């Protein structure tokens, strides 16, 4: 039953052993990373397919809320299986000598698995720091001056976010006297005051550094254009979604029906406006995708800020869509890294890449048969149903942003298909390995198009399960006996 803990322990252990293994046998070091990732994928998929209802695992034998617990439901297991899958797709197979990047990637995989599975605020904080440190290392991995400087700014903003998030966690602790998410959910009425809301705002801003939320996303364009495209794909595709997952867990469990939804909605709207306008006037592909991912994350936040199941379905759909599309687009910038105005002739040198670009771009805009359309449709329907002035404003912003998105993506597509100078055309040729990775992302999206109905059912099931606050609380706390309706500090006779 507890073998899901291997998903955290195995990659962490391998990450620290990798330098030693590498010094004794280079081929073994090359194969052990993908092997561990396959094992993780296997564990997560087995659980994902067999689990009928959510389960809480008390690690170490102490029952929650005192002990540390893992919370397994279909959303967390879905993310736990996506993590090793993305790592396998974006693994540096060509890297023959080094073990540094592999080690950091495994660290990232372990920390990320822990983050999505854990049901405890403090563990979430620790795993979040773990993936932060790993992502700093990866962002600086190509060792150029610009990468170091960009990573430094990333580190400072992220460090500040950590301080804010820790303050928020501290405030929640002063109000409820517990760190277990389910127990916090039980005591949620004590957070329905200005202190509770400011704690939520602090955690959203703090954790939101990774989720590219509006005021703390200054690092995004610099890091994504200075780091290697594989790393940008990982950061934009996977890591940002993990931060979003933490935020929605907190939102669903502890802040259901409060003003926290408005905070998220406003931050999302600002993110859309800022991201899409900046993407519109950016001059090269890397920064265009970086800014557009800020806009997309804003849309995800807007989706999650719709109360109830409708918002959850739309949010998860948007999140998964962006998780597949953005890495594909970022992988294209490996070779297409010049200014957009000079990209002419790129379609001639690698026609498949051009087709894939148009495919991803159309899905990002939301053209009917493609997955992006269904995700955006769910979002639009949710916003119309919510029908308060602020949500309708969000709808207007969303549709305007779609127009802007269409303009800059189609402008680029036209440029790619236009004629270019002969000397430069050769430069735009994509490597065949990259093309195959990008094709895998495209194939995933095609598969989604053809299996729409079963996927929609599955998505509804996941959303209903993860937006059910009572289910979350009961799953973790039903095993423990004492009455938990008052704060733990009061039970221990600490009434002031």
């Amino acid at each position, binding site marked *: 039953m507890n073998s899901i803990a291997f998903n955290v322990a195995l990659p962490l252990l391998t990450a620290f052993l990798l330098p030693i293994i590498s010094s004794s046998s280079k081929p073994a070091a090359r194969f052990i990373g993908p092997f561990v990732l396959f094992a993780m994928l296997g564990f997560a998929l087995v659980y994902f397919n067999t689990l009928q209802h959510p389960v809480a695992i008390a690690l170490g034998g102490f029952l929650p809320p005192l002990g540390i617990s893992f919370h397994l439901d279909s959303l967390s297991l879905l993310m736990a299986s996506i993590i090793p899958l993305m790592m396998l797709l974006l693994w540096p197979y060509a890297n023959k000598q080094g073990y540094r990047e592999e080690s950091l990637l495994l660290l990232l995989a372990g920390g990320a698995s822990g983050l999505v599975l854990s049901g405890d605020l*403090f563990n979430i*904080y*620790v795993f979040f*720091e773990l993936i*932060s*440190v790993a992502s*700093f*290392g990866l962002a*600086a991995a190509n060792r*150029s*001056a*610009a990468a*170091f*400087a*960009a*990573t*430094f*700014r990333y*580190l*400072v903003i992220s*460090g*500040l976010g*950590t*301080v804010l998030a*820790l*303050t928020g*966690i*501290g405030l929640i*602790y*002063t109000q409820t006297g517990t*760190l277990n998410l389910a127990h916090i959910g039980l005591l949620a009425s004590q957070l329905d005051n200005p202190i509770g809301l400011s704690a939520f705002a602090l955690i959203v801003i703090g954790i939101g550094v990774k989720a590219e939320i509006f005021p703390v996303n200054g690092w995004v364009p*610099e890091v994504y*254009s*200075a780091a290697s495209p594989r790393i940008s794909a990982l950061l934009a595709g996977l890591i940002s979604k993990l931060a979003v997952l933490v935020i929605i867990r907190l939102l669903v469990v502890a802040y259901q029906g409060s003003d926290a939804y408005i905070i998220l909605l406003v931050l999302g709207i600002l993110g859309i406006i800022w991201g899409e306008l900046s993407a519109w006037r950016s*001059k*090269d592909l*890397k*920064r265009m995708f970086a800014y557009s991912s800020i806009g997309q994350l804003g849309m995800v936040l807007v989706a999650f800020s719709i109360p109830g199941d409708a918002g959850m379905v739309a949010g998860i759909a948007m999140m998964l869509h962006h998780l597949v599309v953005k890495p594909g687009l970022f992988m294209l910038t490996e070779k297409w*890294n*010049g*200014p957009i105005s*000079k990209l002419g002739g790129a379609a001639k040198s690698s026609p498949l890449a051009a087709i894939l670009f148009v495919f991803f771009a159309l899905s990002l805009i939301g053209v009917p048969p493609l997955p992006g359309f269904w995700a955006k449709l769910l979002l639009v329907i949710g916003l119309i149903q919510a029908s308060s002035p602020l949500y309708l404003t969000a709808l207007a912003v969303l549709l305007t942003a779609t127009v802007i998105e269409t303009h800059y993506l189609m402008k680029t597509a036209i440029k790619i298909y236009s004629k270019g100078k002969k000397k430069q055309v050769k430069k735009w040729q994509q490597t065949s390995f990259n093309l195959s990775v990008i094709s895998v992302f495209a194939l995933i999206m095609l598969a989604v198009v053809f299996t729409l109905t079963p996927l929609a059912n599955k998505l509804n099931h996941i959303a209903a399960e993860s937006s059910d606050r009572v289910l979350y609380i009961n799953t973790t706390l039903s095993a423990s006996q004492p009455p938990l309706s008052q704060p733990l*500090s009061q039970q221990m006779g600490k009434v002031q």
Partner: protein
Amino acid sequence: MSTELIHWLLYGGAMGLIVIGVVGVVVLNNIFRIILALFIAEAGANLLLIIAGYRFDAIAPILTATSATQVMVDPVPQAMVLTSIVIGVGIQALALALVVKIYQHYQTLNLREIHQRMSADINQGCGIISLFSHERPAGSRPLPEPFVPEPVDSEPSTSEPFTPGKNQGDKK
């Protein structure tokens, strides 16, 4: 002084440290000082957590034969702070390593200058000609001739923005 007042003073102090740190990160221009400000803020957050679980009439949360019946301070925030201090030290070391690397590449600790050079580097990597490219020190490519503006009174049209290619053409 009542314990209540001391409590609020401590809370105020912790918040003050966080504010000092955050303002320092935003305002300061030397990257080493920014790191110091970041860790003042972190100390503030840690202090806040410690105060959240502190009681004036309690003992340290260590279970011994004599202490079992006495009131203890809350051990959970202390465990949290211990963890967060360790994480903080790790991040501090990483940040300082990055500062060393940045100084090796750019020979400066001035944030604004680093930011300009970084933008220029990124732009150059993307093939976009930026206006900062003059200030790049000798390195991978030769420096262009220094730009000397012509006297304004003789030709008013020189006030248009400077472009490197055009200037080189003019000199030749």
